[in-house]
């Protein structure tokens, strides 16, 4: 019954001409047609947030968006996070990505792209959220591994560094001086 429809989409700042079937979700289009597999297919029914992308800057669930309703909107996936940061004059990774890396805010990583996009959307709107605001903004992203603590701390680290403040001591560092160990983690090492 359904047939291919031609779509013109804006994905990570690039204009793309693609075709899709009417019953395809944006997530399916991204992953299986365009090859952007950073958006994860977790529950595929709106429960988990692993498929979160930014639509006109706001976090939305790409498993519950029909591809055919996406034209005219700015879609940002995890693949576009660092390019957007660089385009805005930044260097290296987006500070959210960098903080997730240094805080070890992941285990299996399945939730991570959605988490980082929700965090990025929050920081774009509110550059200095407190812990309650961070938790609220990430509350639609489920993580089955980390227990969330390091994830929240990663966002706090990104916030603190952006305003030049001393980051709060994270839970795992107890009273030890830890900012140095964090910066020595910068650039890798398997923590």
């Amino acid at each position, binding site marked *: *019954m*359904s047939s291919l429809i031609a779509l013109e989409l804006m994905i990570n700042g690039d204009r793309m001409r693609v075709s899709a079937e009417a*019953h395809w979700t944006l997530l399916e289009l991204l992953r299986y047609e365009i090859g952007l597999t950073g958006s994860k297919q977790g529950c595929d*029914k709106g429960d988990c947030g692993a498929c979160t992308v930014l639509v006109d800057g706001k976090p939305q669930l790409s498993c519950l968006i*029909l591809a055919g*309703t996406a034209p005219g909107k700015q879609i940002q996936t995890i693949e576009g996070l660092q390019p957007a940061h660089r385009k805005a004059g930044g260097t290296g990774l987006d500070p959210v990505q960098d903080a997730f890396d240094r805080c070890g805010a992941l285990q299996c990583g399945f939730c991570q792209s959605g988490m980082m996009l*929700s965090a990025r959307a929050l920081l774009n709107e509110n550059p200095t959220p407190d812990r309650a605001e961070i938790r609220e903004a990430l*509350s*639609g992203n489920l993580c089955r591994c980390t227990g969330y603590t390091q994830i929240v701390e990663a966002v706090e680290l990104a916030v603190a560094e952006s305003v030049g403040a001393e980051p709060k001591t994270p839970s795992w560092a107890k009273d030890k001086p830890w900012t140095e160990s964090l910066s020595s983690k910068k650039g890798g090492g398997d923590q």
Partner: protein
Amino acid sequence: MLRLPKFNLVSPKSIDEVVQALADSKGRGRILAGGTDLLPNLKHEFIEADIVVSLGEVDELRGIEVSADGGLSIGPLTSLADIASNEHVLRIAPALAQAAGTVAGPQHRIMGTIGGNVMLDTRCQWINQSHFWRSSLGFCLKKDGTACHVVEGGSRCVAAASNDTAAALASLGASLDFQNAPTEHGDGKRTLEFEALFKADGAWNKKVTPTELLTRIHIPATPRGHRGGYVKLRLRGSIDFPLLGVASRLDLDEAGKIEHADLVVIALQARPTRVRKAAKLLIGTTPGQANYDTAVAQVMDAAYKQCTPLPNIPGDHEWRQEMVPVYVKRALAAALG
């Protein structure tokens, strides 16, 4: 992976085009707003559609306005996030803002609309499952089956109305404008009092058909001393549907005495449950005084007796009943701030 079944998609730009597309679908069309309920249900295959009519480009269905009488006129395509934070809603209809702010998680409130919440399908732990899961168990009355897994021998589906904003909108005396395509018999428009929308059949708990377009939500003006609250019981505070939801309304006179009171409970059965008789016990009392506290204890007791949760949605139903008085008390406290 949960694939959507095949359908066609149309994205009209005006109300007139939407109702025409729905009329042309001969009952096989479905309305798509934020999609956060429709798409999971289509994926679970207990809703079917040949044509999905997206409202996304119909700008006339968006927006929150203060009406001439000082009430609210809300376009159904307004997002729940906007409802929850809008200054007029917070002032005129605080229970609605609170209810919208507790629907699902942040992404759902950005995508999900107030119209989609009003028109939300009922929920039951035996139906909100994949087709494969349901086929293994045996289908039920709501779709493709002849038995109910909740009420043994039951002949009617008792899936629960689970829309948080419904309790608030009922307590606010809202009304709803619907539109069908015009025919030789009339212009296709009708207005329903909020509670008149619902019937006690969980298979389809609305008195309008799935292809009737909700075009506007009206909330009458509330008096200066109006207070409203909404609280819900759920397992995870971040995202879950209500296991029980209570909206409260208290209108105070200048001296702080209650002139009008209402309580509406959601997530019990297919319709919102109004516990008005119980709420009336509050009238004439003054919050902060002993007569109010005595009345609250009576209201809690009366609500407990009137509300009988079923094992339709998750959460032990006897526990949910024990929580009725607790949440009635919290809803009243939420109204008073």
